[in-house]
């Protein structure tokens, strides 16, 4: 089997401790689901990075959306990933139980349909996600504007990956020997935005897919770069990622969104790392229409180590709350609630070595 060969090759190439960061939450889940940590030789450490949109959306942004949901005649739409994220004020799930009209949608296009079906209501889409998702939302906003929908609004909490990576590296707090870069974000942005990583920091990068075979191949390619003392951005996920990305998708993002400074849970304020709607689309921008001020930051619960975990400084089991006061049944921080939060993945799939 292909995977066995890859594992053998990794064992052969592996020569000394190495720390690889998998940026993307979906990678965290894939790695845990396939039990990859258990088959890698000791000394290859996989750290989880800040690529979990649900984990890095700060409490105050979620609260803003929750406040809107509480208003009369308002329907709040969001992706399923967000429903259980705990904040000091509850979650979307508990808010729904209290009577707010909160609905999970599968595609941003559903927002258009729901707005059309509810002409008497204000429909607000709380939109979260990185560069993979933003173009789809941008396309939806353009369509909604074309159709002249007057009751559909978008509250953008989108964030961008490369600025977060830069902040991580400039902080110099984590020692990373290689990056497993997010496959689907890269479908959109291509290779160029990551080139500063090998260039300015000398760290190898591989844009990797999500099947176990992809991940193993990505790890192998990183080990090869390290062994050969190279540092570049390689594409393992060739079937989906072109070096130039998807220009049409980026053009739509450009048309609709502009970069803003944005606060990330755990990483703090990162310049030009978030997306907000442009002036042209102001009539659909929830922030402008509902006059939402920049929300007051809400501090994380005491002892919650999500911040350190998101930066790859701690592993989930090293958090004092992990598995004790913080479990998927009663999560303290979002790393435990989000299906792809590091803690949730560790807890549910286990960093398990059986027998």
């Amino acid at each position: 089997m292909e995977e066995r060969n890859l594992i053998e090759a990794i064992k052969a190439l592996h020569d000394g401790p190495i720390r690889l960061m998998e940026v993307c939450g979906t990678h965290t889940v894939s790695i845990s689901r396939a039990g990859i940590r258990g088959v890698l030789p000791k000394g290859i450490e996989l750290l989880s990075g800040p690529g979990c949109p649900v984990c890095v959306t700060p409490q105050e942004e979620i609260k803003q959306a929750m406040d809107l949901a509480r208003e009369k005649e308002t329907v709040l739409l969001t992706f399923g990933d967000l429903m259980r994220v705990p904040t000091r004020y509850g979650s979307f799930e508990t808010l729904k139980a209290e009577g707010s009209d909160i609905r999970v949608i599968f595609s941003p296009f559903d927002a258009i349909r729901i707005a059309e079906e509810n002409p008497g209501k204000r429909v607000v889409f709380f939109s979260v996600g990185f560069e993979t998702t933003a173009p789809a939302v941008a396309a939806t906003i353009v369509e909604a504007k074309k159709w002249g929908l007057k009751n559909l609004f978008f509250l953008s909490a989108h964030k961008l990956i490369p600025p977060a990576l830069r902040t991580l590296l400039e902080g110099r707090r984590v020692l990373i020997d290689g990056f497993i870069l997010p496959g689907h974000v890269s479908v959109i942005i291509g290779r160029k935005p990551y080139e500063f990583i090998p260039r300015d920091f000398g760290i190898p990068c591989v844009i990797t897919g999500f099947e176990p075979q992809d991940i193993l191949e990505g790890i192998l390619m990183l080990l090869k770069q390290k062994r050969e003392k190279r540092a570049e951005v390689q594409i393992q996920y060739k079937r989906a990622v072109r070096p130039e990305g998807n220009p049409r998708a980026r053009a739509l993002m450009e048309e609709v969104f502009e970069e803003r400074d944005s606060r990330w849970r755990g990483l703090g304020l990162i310049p030009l790392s978030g997306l907000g709607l442009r002036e042209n689309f102001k009539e659909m921008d929830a922030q402008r229409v509902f006059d939402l001020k920049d929300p007051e930051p809400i501090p994380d619960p005491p002892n919650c180590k999500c911040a350190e975990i998101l930066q790859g400084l701690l592993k989930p089991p090293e958090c004092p709350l992990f598995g004790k006061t913080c479990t998927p049944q009663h999560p303290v921080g979002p790393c435990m609630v989000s299906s792809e939060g590091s803690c949730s993945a560790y807890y549910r799939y286990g960093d398990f070595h059986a027998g």
Partner: protein
Amino acid sequence: MCLGIPGKVLSIKDEMAEVDFGGVKRTVSLLLCPEVKVGDYVLVHVGFAITKLEEEEAKETLKLLEEYLGREELD
């Protein structure tokens, strides 16, 4: 991040495609990939095609998925 699922385009009408994902179907927007044609394989995220998959490579994904998950048509 994020779930991107490979599927095969069965038909196209006005920038919306009917896509088959290993036995289940859904309409998908082609606004981000207008050059896609019937018969192409696409990668889909939140109901939008985000890229065309190279057929050989796409079949690889589907095969990987099926191989990895070890299922064949159970009937």
